[in-house]
């Protein structure tokens, strides 16, 4: 069997703007099915998924996401780090707009306007590789969504703050004990609104690959 999926992989983008058109259960189930087939250490399959379509719940998740991301981006700006990060953007209006989008946390609010969120969590007890297994599960879902013509984005931001995670768990009625479940991220899924204007550049192989040993860049 030889089926190259590089076309699907290399054309996927993080989509944060969606139309109001709902996503059918049939498509959601296909994405969930893709999650189920992800690799996991010792086939432990620690993942559990919550499909959120309720607009009120999505709005609550959005507010927490905005706080989590906004506070970090706000401080990055105030400490002068964001200016360095976007020094390459010459158009001042464009730069200001981008910085506002980040500093307010709206960058993490917009995904929750998607009609479907899939919250990804993993059972911790008796497991060995939970974060890595969950990441593979997320990638499977992103690729499947893209192959179906849907837009999706992986949102990790709110899951990095223990206090925010506790609130997210309370909203979703996930047991809040730190030893029970790891809530790692959510994926927003919907029909893309327009085309993304600025595909993010990817590093060339020459910059990321070493042959045989660290530091050897030449293939032969």
């Amino acid at each position, binding site marked *: 069997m030889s089926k190259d999926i590089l076309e699907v992989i290399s054309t996927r983008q993080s989509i944060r703007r969606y139309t109001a058109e709902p996503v059918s259960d049939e498509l959601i189930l296909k994405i969930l099915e893709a999650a189920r087939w992800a690799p996991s250490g010792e086939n432990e399959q620690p993942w559990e998924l919550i499909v959120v379509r309720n607009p009120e719940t999505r709005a609550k998740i959005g507010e927490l996401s905005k706080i989590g991301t906004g*506070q970090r981006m706000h401080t990055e700006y105030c400490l002068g780090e964001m200016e360095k990060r976007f020094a390459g953007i010459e158009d001042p209006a464009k730069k200001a707009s981008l910085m506002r989008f980040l*500093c307010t946390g709206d960058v993490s609010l917009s995904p929750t306007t998607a009609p479907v969120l899939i919250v990804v969590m993993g059972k911790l007890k008796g497991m060995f590789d939970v974060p890595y297994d969950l990441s593979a599960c997320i990638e499977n879902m992103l690729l499947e969504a893209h192959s179906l013509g849907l837009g999706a984005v992986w949102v990790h931001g709110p899951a990095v703050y223990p*206090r925010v995670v506790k609130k997210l768990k309370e909203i979703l009625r996930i047991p809040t004990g730190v030893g029970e479940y790891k809530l790692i991220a959510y994926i927003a899924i919907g029909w893309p609104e327009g085309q993304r204007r600025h595909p993010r550049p990817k590093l060339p192989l020459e910059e990321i690959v070493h042959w045989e040993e660290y530091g050897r860049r030449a293939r032969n």
Partner: protein
Amino acid sequence: MNNMKNRKLEYFNDLLYRLEEMLYHELSMCAHPKSELVGSDFLASGKIEGANLEQLLGNCLTEIKESGLVDDISYSLHASGTCLRLSVGNCIHMQKEARLKSEGIEPYCCPIANMILDRILGALHYLTTYTADIKVDEDKRRCVIKCAVFDSIGKIGQVSDWTRF
């Protein structure tokens, strides 16, 4: 007696160092926000309160000094009201911070800042807090920590310059 106390402190900081090293290795700089609760129990269990930010900070700093966690500590607030600057001298955690730095890891977890920020949330019901920047001068045994404190969601995104603060 002092020797024994120093050995215990050394042991305790070595444990913290190893844990922080591991967390950094697993999470890179995401270890920083993930560790926001480290230290938070100390003032919370003492139920340190205050009617407003200045009063609360005064009470927190007194408790921290009197308990011997640091030799001296002071604070200032940025005009925006969203940046709290802490200056901490001779903290009991200086050894682990210096060791992290010597291993090429920027210190990312200040239990002293964490315990103060936790009280701002717990006693004054601020929306959120975030340790923005930790500068450790191991030669002078002094740290300067800048923390974001937001009492409402509207403050997030109302940026100002903290570089010279």
